[in-house]
């Protein structure tokens, strides 16, 4: 029997309506009013593994990118069976509306959302402004963790092709736009890693030829919400030369910061073809023989390799 998909009512806030897919966002007001609604699951995904435990939105459950979304042997994400087991353990049903939020302008929440979309979970939304906005508005936090009844999440085969790029996809992509969302120092190649920690970086510094530098956090306001549509268009269309209808790949160091940009390009600006290259610089900067450009210039795109 096919489960009937009945999403929780969308947030019709005027602050979201200008975006291409306002249904992918909710406001803090909406979430506060809808907590406890049947079919709504709230998940917190943070960079800091302890942050949820210091206090979280009532009813929210924790999902951790490092210990839960990655395979712990392969450099890859969970497979269908692992994802089903994880979501079942968190009591998430395939038909549930999932609202994700987190620290650092939803950086890690966007990453979790991207993984959910690899498995085609239909209704996943971000809380605009994330954890910080909720707290700055003085809204309720709790340390209570309610027991969760396990659900039966189906085993869904992961579908990488549409939103995930591998290194060969990048080599074949040349001539189409690439966005590098790392810091300017990482883009120029001045820095390949955090200071003094070469094992966290790559063997070479620089960027993928022709990639435009748009550090991910430029898409967020000071209050951690997403910038207005006009500002986003100025940033990515006017600033980085992207056009509607373009096929875009975004990357960073391991694919987390670029998930944030992927979300902006796909759901806020409405580009149909956007992929996240999660191998990112830790892979590209250590691959033998791939082209690299150092310095501030984007550099010319090599011939695509298909």
């Amino acid at each position, binding site marked *: 029997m096919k489960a009937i998909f009945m999403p929780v009512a969308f947030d019709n806030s005027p602050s979201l309506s200008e975006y291409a897919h306002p249904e992918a966002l909710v406001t803090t007001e909406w979430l506060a009013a809808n907590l406890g609604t049947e079919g709504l699951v709230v998940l917190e995904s943070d*960079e*800091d*593994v*302890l*942050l949820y*435990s*210091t206090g979280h939105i009532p009813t929210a459950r924790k999902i951790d990118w*490092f*210990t839960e979304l990655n395979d712990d042997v392969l450099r890859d994400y969970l497979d269908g069976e692992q994802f089903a087991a994880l979501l079942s353990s968190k009591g998430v049903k395939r038909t549930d509306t999932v609202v994700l939020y987190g*620290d650092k302008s939803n950086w890690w929440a966007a990453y979790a959302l991207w993984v959910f979309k690899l498995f085609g979970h239909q209704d996943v939304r971000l809380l605009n402004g994330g954890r910080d906005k909720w707290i700055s508005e003085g809204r309720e936090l709790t340390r209570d963790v309610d027991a969760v009844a396990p659900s039966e999440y189906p085993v869904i085969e992961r579908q990488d092709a549409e939103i995930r790029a591998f290194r060969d996809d990048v080599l074949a992509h040349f001539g189409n736009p690439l966005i590098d969302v790392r810091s300017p120092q990482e883009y120029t190649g001045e820095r390949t890693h*955090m*200071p*003094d*920690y070469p*094992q*966290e970086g790559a063997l070479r510094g620089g960027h993928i030829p022709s990639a435009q530098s748009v550090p991910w956090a430029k898409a967020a306001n000071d209050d951690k919400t997403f910038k207005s549509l006009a500002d986003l268009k100025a940033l990515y269309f006017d600033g980085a030369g992207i056009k509607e209808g373009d096929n875009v790949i975004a990357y960073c160091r391991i694919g987390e910061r670029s998930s944030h940009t992927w979300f902006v390009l796909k759901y806020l600006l409405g580009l149909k073809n956007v992929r996240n290259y999660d191998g990112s610089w830790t892979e590209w900067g250590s691959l033998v023989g791939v082209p690299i450009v150092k310095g501030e210039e984007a550099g010319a795109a090599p011939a695509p390799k298909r």
Partner: protein
Amino acid sequence: MSRTDSIQELIADFGELSKNDKLNLLLEFSDNLPDLPARYADHPDLLERVEECQSPVYLFVELDDANDVHLFFTAPAEAPTTRGFASVLHEALDGRSAETVLNLNPDFPDLLGLTEAVSPLRINGMRAMIARIKRQVREKLV
């Protein structure tokens, strides 16, 4: 109470816990990081920033007449993992001899088993705290 075994005790305490309980214990440490004494709280310029940490954490090391080490940390509440690391290091090293501190195994985070629960970048932050504590101790010994 003798503190001579605080390092080994911590390794034993963390070692027997599951991944989730390790995080709970780290949270407990995070909640209990001692506040800065007034002489540092009023003079943040005296504290050294640990640049390698993703969250702002500052530390200061004092040596007393017996060359025992006293540690002072501050990190914001929004950075509980960083606070937890600082608090664990305080528990392990505060009041110990300079020699004991300098001999702390740089793989201490691995010995606690934290690498299975906390991302590598974070663990590097804890290693950096250890390295900076040792450097300050060395500077103050001369």
